[in-house]
């Protein structure tokens, strides 16, 4: 029979070699996670999906949904599928408070993650404290307000960012050998922006900079023309802007209209769009994740960056690239999953005790919670600069994007 004839051609040595090859392949092939089974683990979160913070809320939504999808693809959590409940807090702290009550008491989620924005976080944290839930958040601007002992910050800005950040900015510019001598401080009256701005003023004074202008404006300010005129009039070596969202773009537009371009400029919480705005070229900001090396050097970072960029383009985000906002949300999930995996428990007290004593590997690097109010022990953030329409890491130099240099006069 033809089949028999064909089989008879195989020698015993060939068969043994083939089986050996199969065994070797089985040993080195990537481990395929088993599909999660059993009752799902419920994780709940409220985000600003509508209202003034919806633009940023959407970034967090994309990350959370991607993380859960990836987690379930890789075997779930403790071998069980993860069921993610996402609610819309409409950018309102009072709604956020109600939704976390609902998540805990009505939806009966096993674990929660914090919402977006300082005010909503504070509102939700009160609920978490009442029900003794571990509370991990990633966007709280004023760490000192997070006094709940089971609160953990996914941010890596350290316990005193209002001191470390201004020093980092000035160190960054000093690294060029031509540090600024005068500073103009422009800030929104939004609480977390004001807090950081006060720190900037104090540090600048300590380091001998002369403050040539201090300009505060209300949230929702419409007219940046007179502010631009005053900055032009003061002509500082360095302009610090304690801004939120598109306020940075608005001031830069007004500055262009009066024919002025800041020599050195920093923006506290800018919209991702800022980098793509031509007058923002050379603007500095903070980061701990972008879709450029060194952040994408790790396989997980590269996978996340590629997946986020694709989803952001699909959802029509104006700046469709991953940045630290998305990275912080991802880190929040990594912290929660690390604690559950290490303790094999969903008990909030057990998780809190573990996080209190251990370090976690996140996209922002290995970090612990030894800082006051369970922030990171040190400020691990980097400086990024808008160059050719994209954010790139520029400082500290060992964390800079390869081939990129800080541009400053």
């Amino acid at each position, binding site marked *: 029979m033809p089949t028999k004839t064909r089989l008879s051609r195989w020698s015993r040595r060939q068969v043994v070699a083939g089986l050996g090859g199969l065994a070797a392949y089985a040993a080195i092939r990537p481990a395929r996670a088993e599909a999660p089974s059993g009752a799902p683990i419920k994780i709940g979160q409220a985000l600003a999906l509508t*209202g*003034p913070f919806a633009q940023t809320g959407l970034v967090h939504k994309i990350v959370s949904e991607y993380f859960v999808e990836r987690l379930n693809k890789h075997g779930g959590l403790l071998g069980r599928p993860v069921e993610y409940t996402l609610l819309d807090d409409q950018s309102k702290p009072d709604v956020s408070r109600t939704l976390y009550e609902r998540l805990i008491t009505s939806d009966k989620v096993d674990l929660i993650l914090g919402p977006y924005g300082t005010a909503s976080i504070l509102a939700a944290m009160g609920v978490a404290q009442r029900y003794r839930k571990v509370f991990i958040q990633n966007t709280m601007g004023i760490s000192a307000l997070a006094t709940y002992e089971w609160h953990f910050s996914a941010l890596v800005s350290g316990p005193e960012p209002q001191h470390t950040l201004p020093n980092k900015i000035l160190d960054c510019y000093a690294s060029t050998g031509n540090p600024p001598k005068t500073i103009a401080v422009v800030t929104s009256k939004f609480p977390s922006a004001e807090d950081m701005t006060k720190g900037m003023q104090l540090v600048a004074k300590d380091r001998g900079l002369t403050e040539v202008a201090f300009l505060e404006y*209300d949230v929702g300010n419409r*007219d940046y*023309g*007179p502010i631009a*005129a005053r900055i032009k*009039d003061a002509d500082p070596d360095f302009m610090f802007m304690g801004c939120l969202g598109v306020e940075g773009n608005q001031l830069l*537009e007004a500055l262009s209209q009066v024919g002025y371009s800041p020599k050195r400029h920093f923006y506290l919480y800018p919209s991702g769009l800022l980098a793509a705005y031509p007058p923002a070229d050379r603007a500095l900001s903070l980061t701990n994740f972008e879709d450029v090396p060194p952040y994408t050097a790790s396989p997980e970072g590269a996978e996340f960056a590629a997946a986020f960029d694709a989803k952001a383009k699909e959802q029509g985000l*104006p700046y469709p690239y991953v940045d630290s906002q998305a990275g912080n949300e991802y880190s929040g999930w990594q912290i929660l999953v690390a604690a559950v995996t290490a303790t094999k428990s969903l008990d909030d007290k057990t998780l809190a005790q573990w996080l209190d004593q251990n370090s976690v590997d996140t996209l922002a690097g290995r970090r612990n919670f030894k800082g006051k109010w369970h922030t990171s022990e040190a400020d691990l953030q980097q400086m990024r600069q808008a160059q050719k329409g994209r954010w790139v890491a520029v400082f500290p130099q060992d964390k800079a994007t390869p081939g990129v240099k800080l541009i400053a006069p």
Partner: protein
Amino acid sequence: MPHLSLIEQSLVTGLLSGGLYGLLALGLSMSWGLLRLVNIGHFAMALLGAYLTWFMGTQLGIAPWLSGPIIIAAFFLYGIALHWVFMRFGVTEMQSMLITFALAVIVEASIQTLWTADFRRFETPWGRQSWIAGSLYVPKLNLLAFLVAALLAASTWAWLRYTYVGRALRACAEDAPIATAFGINHRGLSFLLSGLCAAYAAVAGLFIALVATLAPSEIWTWIGVVFAVVIIGRLGNPLGALAGGILIGVCEALTMAMVNPSWAPLVSFSVLIALLLFRPRWI
């Protein structure tokens, strides 16, 4: 003491901002003064006009000078329809405020649903361009908005003062039954005026799209200052609306330049209270 150039530049900026305030106030002032309808929905329609300009410009590739007439005509028809509803149900001055407030909320929610709460910016080649006169920079689009506001205010004033229709409208505002007894078609004229007020909202929206960043909640940021402008400029007075806008714009800009930008929101109502206390003849 601030430099003279800073004060001069702030005066220019304030003057131009005042033009936009005046443009927004024009339709509201006419509706309130001559139709006795307090149309809070005017702000929402202006922002809707801005979003439509942005949408047609960025998504459909229609330039503002082409989309503008389409939006203005559509808004004119909307104004007539709205007034028909008001007439049909006999809406009073106070009721109009509540109904149009609800309308503004509906428009805000619709904008948010259609275009999300993301900030939107209509980038044009002229957005960051200015004319330079000595040490002064005059932003081109803001100047254009000011000139259009001035032209509309002046032509509306002349129309009300020198034409039969304008005089008839003023007569109706004074005493509608008597005006009707003299053969004035009060109903028809009020439809025309309501359509015009909505069209003014569209014009304001066109310029808001060109000079400002858009977000659905922007509707509410204009209300306080524009109401002050309308009252300072006197109800139903187109030139007054422009003058009130300029007064507030200049005062705000000087406050921002000489004191602190955070003081600017106090200006509009402080000026209004001061004027009400001293009661100049025009208020």
